[in-house]
């Protein structure tokens, strides 16, 4: 019994322990389970979150796509690979007249849709066939145009959709382009219409690309150039049509403009296929593409060959007329010259005749002859002036001068001339014009002489006034206005218009009563214009006349003879001055030498540039007078050498004054460029040289009065001697005054030098060696002036100019005949004069 109880106890004990073991295991398992569960839950949560996120993103994208498709301007249909509708929009439903909302169609089968909607299209069978073909090929196809039965035009895109290589469906896009097409058609129609009009207007149209290759040719153009359309398309327009290389530049420039979007009109000669050259006027315009980019140009061609021929004929006619006018001018100039010579003879002889014993009637007749001769001479001089101006031989040369001085001088002169009349002559200069000015004083003097002369002629009482007003100042540039006002007879309004034309005086009565050439005002206007101004006239008949002209001037700080307001009493001593005279002409040497001696200058004479350089290396000088044309080393080159002397040589920067035989403007410019400071045209009067020298020696003390005005009898004792009027008396008097001894030396010198050289001149004429002739005349011309052979000098100058200009030598024969005739006539006179001078100078 006891054993059994023990056994049971052990058994229960074992069972209890086993249960405890099992419970423990159970707890562990439960815990494991709980943990696993927890992990799972977490995993689930994060999974859910990411699923949520993805779902939302998908939804968003989906909504965006849907919205995009709904709002497209085109009908869209997206089908899956089984041809079930994935997506479509309202426009699609409208286009195909589907009576349903697009959302309702999702999932619908499309396999029969082509068949169902084919009747909407103009060609139903073709529509179905094409759809079948597209679906079979599965290849992208865009912008297909479909005509609908109701006339609308649709544009269709078929877009197959592949993911990698797997076909997922496709997208249809249909757009109604009817309106676009209509606009386009209208545009094209309008374009065609205008092209048609242009074609009918005889205008040839051609289109080229940006590289000038022909793109399109219209029939009228084909006919114009004689090439067929096929012969032109694709070729470079310039190569086919433009034979003349000089016009290629024109075309290239035009093409460049065209690419820049600029239109243009131009004329070129083009070659037809048959070789004929025709002139066309081309109006070219750029062609723009839809984006505003230039893709080529269109040219409208008009045949202007006829017009061109007419133009050329006109041009030719004009040239002939111009030649004739030139010939006329030359004739006039020559005639004037021809006439002047005998008139000088008449005047001279009249003067000589006056010295004989005459009856009062004879004196009266002689006065009449003298008056007429004077008038004739004035007329001829004016004609010469006019023809010179018109031939462009007269050009203003700028130089500094004192305006007030010039005007004072002039008015004083006239006051003296008109002192018998109850008349005042005044001049007023704007006080704003203080300094010296730059302009052409010779021109101004001549203009004012004419205007004042005019006033003097027509004004008996009252006043004549010259007034200068400053209109405007721009830096040193001055625009002035000069007026000459008188209280004379005035000009009738109907004559004011023509007053400045040649040979037009106010009227016949005026001509009868007052005389005159009728050229004065024409010359004035020409001179004013040459000087850059304009002239006008204002007049009241019976009350007076005002001539007003503008005169552009420049202000300069160059001091002329500010200390000396009275130019008549020029004084100068060259006592301490060393002057180098570089001159090869013996006569000129002597002339300058005489003046230098008079003015007590310390001078040296060099016969040419080489010699001058030697002197300059030995001694310091104050100034050089330099001839330009010299053997060995000429004046220009000598000047360049002087200006390039070492700095140690003081002569390097001294003033050099050119003595030029010609008044040619280019020679003066050349002189300045080579480094010369000033120039003086030969022949020059002592006065002219002195004024120039004073500019360089302004501080010299006033010592000796040196001018020799004609009426100021000063040094000479022989008052009865007068130069032969057949020579240029005015010239001789201005050169020598009454210093006949000095004149005698010069005539003597001419006789022993130049006179003998005329043999070689004759020889050059005989052998027609123009180069030698030109050189000789250039050399002797100043000498001729020195002995009063002004007309011979002038003729020499004409011949020289003709040789210089080269070319045909038109009129040379006439000039040479004149020259030889004058020579024979005048040389004995010079010889005579020399004898006369010898007797008076003792």
């Amino acid at each position: 019994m006891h054993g059994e109880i023990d056994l049971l106890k052990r058994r229960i004990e074992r069972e209890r322990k086993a249960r405890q073991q099992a419970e423990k295991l159970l707890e562990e398992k439960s815990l494991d389970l709980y943990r696993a569960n927890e992990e799972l839950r977490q995993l689930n949560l994060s999974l859910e979150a990411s699923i949520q996120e993805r779902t939302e993103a998908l939804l968003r994208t989906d909504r965006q796509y849907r919205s995009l498709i709904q709002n497209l301007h085109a009908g869209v249909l997206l089908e899956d690979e089984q041809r079930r509708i994935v997506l479509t929009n309202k426009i699609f439903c409208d286009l195909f007249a589907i009576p349903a909302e697009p959302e309702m169609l999702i999932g619908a089968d499309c396999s029969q849709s082509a068949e169902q909607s084919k009747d909407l299209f103009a060609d139903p069978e073709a529509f179905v066939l094409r759809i079948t073909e597209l679906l079979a090929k599965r290849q992208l196809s865009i912008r297909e145009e479909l005509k609908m039965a109701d006339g609308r035009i649709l544009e269709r895109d078929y877009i197959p959709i592949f993911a990698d290589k797997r076909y997922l469906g496709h997208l249809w896009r249909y757009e109604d382009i009817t309106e676009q097409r209509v606009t386009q058609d209208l545009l094209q129609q309008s374009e065609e219409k205008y092209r048609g009009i242009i074609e009918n207007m005889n205008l040839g149209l051609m289109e080229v690309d940006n590289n000038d290759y022909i793109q399109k040719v219209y029939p009228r153009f084909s006919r114009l150039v004689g090439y067929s359309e096929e012969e032109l398309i694709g070729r470079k327009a310039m190569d086919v049509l433009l034979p003349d290389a000089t016009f290629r530049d024109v075309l290239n420039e035009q093409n460049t403009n065209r690419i820049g979007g600029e239109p243009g009109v131009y004329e070129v000669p083009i070659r037809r296929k048959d070789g004929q050259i025709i002139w066309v006027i081309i109006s070219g315009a750029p062609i723009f593409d839809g984006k505003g980019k230039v893709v080529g140009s269109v040219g409208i061609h008009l045949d202007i060959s006829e017009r061109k021929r007419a133009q050329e004929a006109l041009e030719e006619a004009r040239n002939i007329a111009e030649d004739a006018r030139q010939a006329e001018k030359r004739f006039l100039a020559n005639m004037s010259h021809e006439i002047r010579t005998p008139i000088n003879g008449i005047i001279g002889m009249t003067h000589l005749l006056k010295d004989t014993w005459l009856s009062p009637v004879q004196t009266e007749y002689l006065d009449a002859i003298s008056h007429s001769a004077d008038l004739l001479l004035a007329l001829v001089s004016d004609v010469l002036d006019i023809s010179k101006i018109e031939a462009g031989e007269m050009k203003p040369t700028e130089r500094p001068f004192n305006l007030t001085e010039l005007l004072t001088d002039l008015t004083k002169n006239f006051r003296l001339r008109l002192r018998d009349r109850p008349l005042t002559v005044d001049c007023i200069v704007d006080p704003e014009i203080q300094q010296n000015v730059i302009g052409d004083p010779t021109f101004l003097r001549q203009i004012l002489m004419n205007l004042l002369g005019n006033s003097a002629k027509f004004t008996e009482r009252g006043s004549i006034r010259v007034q200068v007003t400053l209109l405007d100042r721009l830096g040193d540039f001055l625009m002035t206005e000069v007026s000459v006002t008188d209280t004379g007879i005035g000009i009738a309004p109907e004559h004011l218009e023509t007053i400045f034309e040649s040979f037009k005086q106010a009227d016949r009565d005026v001509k009868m009563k007052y005389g005159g050439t009728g050229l004065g005002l024409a010359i004035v206007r020409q001179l004013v214009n040459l000087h850059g101004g304009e002239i006008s006239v204002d007049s009241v008949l019976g009350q007076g006349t005002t001539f007003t002209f503008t005169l552009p001037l420049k202000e300069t700080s160059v001091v002329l003879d500010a200390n000396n307001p009275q130019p008549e009493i020029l004084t100068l001593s060259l006592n301490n001055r060393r002057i180098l005279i570089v001159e090869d002409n013996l006569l000129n040497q002597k002339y300058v030498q005489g003046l230098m001696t008079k003015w007590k200058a310390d001078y040296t004479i060099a016969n040419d540039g080489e010699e001058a350089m030697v002197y300059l290396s030995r001694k310091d000088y104050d100034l050089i007078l330099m001839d330009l044309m010299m053997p060995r080393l000429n004046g220009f080159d000598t000047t360049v050498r002087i200006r390039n002397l070492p700095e140690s040589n003081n002569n390097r920067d001294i003033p050099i004054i050119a003595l030029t035989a010609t008044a040619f403007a280019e020679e003066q410019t050349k002189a300045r460029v080579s480094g010369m400071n000033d120039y003086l045209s030969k022949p020059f009067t002592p006065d002219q040289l002195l004024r120039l020298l004073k500019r360089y020696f302004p501080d010299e003390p006033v010592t000796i009065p040196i001018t020799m005005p004609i009426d100021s009898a000063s040094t000479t004792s022989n008052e009865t001697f007068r130069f032969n009027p057949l020579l240029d008396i005015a010239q001789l008097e201005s050169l020598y005054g009454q210093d006949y001894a000095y004149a005698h030396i010069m005539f003597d010198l001419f006789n022993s030098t130049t006179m003998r050289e005329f043999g070689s001149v004759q020889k050059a004429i005989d052998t027609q060696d123009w180069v030698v002739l030109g050189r000789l005349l250039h050399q002797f011309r100043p000498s001729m002036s020195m002995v009063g052979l002004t007309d011979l000098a002038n003729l020499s100058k004409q011949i020289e100019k003709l040789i210089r200009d080269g070319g045909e030598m038109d009129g040379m024969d006439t000039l040479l005949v004149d020259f030889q005739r004058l020579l024979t006539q005048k040389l004995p006179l010079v010889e005579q004069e020399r004898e006369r001078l010898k007797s008076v100078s003792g």
Partner: protein
Amino acid sequence: MKGIVFTELLEMIEQKHSYELVDQLIEQAALPSGGTYTAVGTYSADELNKLVQLYCEETNTSPSVLLADFGHHLFVVFTKSYPIFFDTCSTAFQLLESIEQTIHVNVLKLYPDAELPRFITKRLDENSLEMHYFSERRMSAFAYGLIQATLAYYNETATIQIEQLDEEGKDVRFLIIKEI
């Protein structure tokens, strides 16, 4: 080794003999676990071997007979506890084939640490099944009992040829040929 093997072995001994013998064997064996087993626990295979050895000495039984009997006993327990496995199979061969494919897979889900024998089956023809047994435990006799019990469960008769392929008895081939 799973605790159910211990509890059911002791259960069978108690049924065949008495709890006194069970108590005697446990006391004699002086086992590390103290002989207290729960079906869901896991214990050393040595303890089972010790108990089998002591029982066979005590009752003068051969271990293979004991193990075959134990196979029969355990099969009955399984049919009661896990009927689901048996309901899904309609023949003995199907069940035998499902041991490796289904039953062991589920056992491992519950007890990931279980050390199970392997049964590789191969149908030679409609009525013959070859079955390979591999186990470190060398308990092919126990497997033999289970096979016999299976055939009986499905009311099938078959000859079972046993061929030991190694010396220790870890690799044994059963050839089951159904009698028609």
